[in-house]
């Protein structure tokens, strides 16, 4: 308890707020998301994180907290400033009786030891019932990417990383489960391995993608809330209904990766560069888009398109063991470069 005396910020535990409002509190550690559901609405948040959404009968408020919504001994703690800024006064009256807990202030710059990137989760795309993209002569994306992922695991292990695969044989895993697995393993880096497809055989080259938040402007978020059945547009007037099950997967899920997008972009750049160097394939671009598999990742995360399986020449290469090693080496080089840079920066 002594440590708390040095502290500067006041917090209220999510569970105490829930009971003060006569509601219920619920937290999923693997997704890093929680919610407080009470009579008049619900409060959804990311923890550890900054994103929150308050849904009431007459209004919806979404935003980012200045202070991190912290996780302490498995329970999310909301900064008092956030609670006061977001909840209308009629709720604050009920909450005012609560005694804030003082938690140690967040370090000014998050100091990350090299070890923070030590665990890498590699996700071979598709699998099982989902063959992924198809190449000539029955070549399947799911087989190619598994072979590459296994080689990448060996490459990274030889460079001192601890590596887990989301799948090590031919079976299907839902997309959200893949990044949840990485969260559970407390991975420092998440890499999803894919082979690309085009409507035209001629398209070729390597691409690396990261999660882009392009469409998460406030308007799109409101639409998202509507889409999820959170907000029901009545004739002219907004009516609100609260989903009984599930969190706000789309709104907050997007945000889980938000804090890491800048790092993800750097990782994407380094991987693209080194991958095209070892394979001599054309480096097309890095690009942001809304990838389900990246949305929930709470670490730098990229999706590597190792080549076009729909291009006859590249498909032949991708099926070749020697070339697969080149791909693995290229990705591993990029990861090492990224980690070195990040560690030096801190």
């Amino acid at each position: 308890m002594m440590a708390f005396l040095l502290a500067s910020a006041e917090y209220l535990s999510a569970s105490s707020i829930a009971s003060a409002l006569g509601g219920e509190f619920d937290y999923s550690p693997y997704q890093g998301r929680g919610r407080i559901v009470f009579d008049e609405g619900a409060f959804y948040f990311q923890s550890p994180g900054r994103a929150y959404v308050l849904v009431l009968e007459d209004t919806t408020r979404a935003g980012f907290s200045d202070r991190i919504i912290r996780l302490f001994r498995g329970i999310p703690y909301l900064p008092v400033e956030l609670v006061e800024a977001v909840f209308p006064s009629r709720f604050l009256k009920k909450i005012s009786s609560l005694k804030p807990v003082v938690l140690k202030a967040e370090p000014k710059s998050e100091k990350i030891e090299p070890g923070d990137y030590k665990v890498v989760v590699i996700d071979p795309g598709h699998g099982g019932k989902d063959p992924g993209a198809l190449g000539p002569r029955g070549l399947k994306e799911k087989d190619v990417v598994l072979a590459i992922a296994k080689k990448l695991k060996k490459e990274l292990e030889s460079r001192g990383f601890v590596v887990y695969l989301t799948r090590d044989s031919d079976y299907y895993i839902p997309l959200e489960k893949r990044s949840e697995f990485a969260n559970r393993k407390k991975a420092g880096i998440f890499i999803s391995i894919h082979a690309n497809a085009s409507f035209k055989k001629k398209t070729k080259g390597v691409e690396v993608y990261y999660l882009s938040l392009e469409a998460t402007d406030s308007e799109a978020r409101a639409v998202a809330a509507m889409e999820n059945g959170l907000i029901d547009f009545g004739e002219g007037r907004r009516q609100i209904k609260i989903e009984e099950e599930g969190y706000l997967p789309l709104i907050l899920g997007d945000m889980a990766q938000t804090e890491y997008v800048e790092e993800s972009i750097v990782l994407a750049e380094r991987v693209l560069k080194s991958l095209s160097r070892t394979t001599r394939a054309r480096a097309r671009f890095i690009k942001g888009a809304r990838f389900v598999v990246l949305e929930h990742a709470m670490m730098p995360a990229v999706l590597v398109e190792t080549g076009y399986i729909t291009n006859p020449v590249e498909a032949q290469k991708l099926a070749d063991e020697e070339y697969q090693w080149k791909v693995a080496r290229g990705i591993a080089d990029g990861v090492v470069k990224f980690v070195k840079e990040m560690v030096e920066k801190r």
Partner: protein
Amino acid sequence: MRISSKERTFYMYLLWTVLSLLFVGFLYKLVFPHGFSLHRGMVKIFLYFPTEDLSSYKKEIRWVRFRNDPQDLAKLVLEELAKGPKNARLSPVLPVGTKINGVYIASDGTAYADFSEEFIKNHPGGSAAERITVEAVFIALKVNVPKVKRVKFLVNGKEIKELRGHLDMTLPFSFRLKSLLK
């Protein structure tokens, strides 16, 4: 002056021909009140297909029957898009056999584009192809139907979570046209 019966028959035929021509002219005016030309009653639309390396979009012009209702127009636009590019060096953007069930445009500018199951079943997959499909549908609707602000994808009237395992299809898509058509 005497008119022979032969001449009278001739004049009768002449009169009949003239009257018939006048009648045909009248009918023509009735059917085509504004005269006739190749694109009469048609409207010009612009479709954008990607180049073979999927690096940029090129414009193609099509004529479709004029539709007063933006939703009908939107459906026609997507039907033309599904036919693919005329220029063989450009890439198609919708899977083979994709039919457009309809487009519903909500008052907030969200277009709900409803496709047949081939939209997913025949899609080649891959991040690039998925991106091209989503972008090209958005561009086609945004450029030709001014009301449209964003596009949400449906298959047989139902929401879809994914296309072929890459993009999150649960939310409507919205892009800056400038960034796509640079």
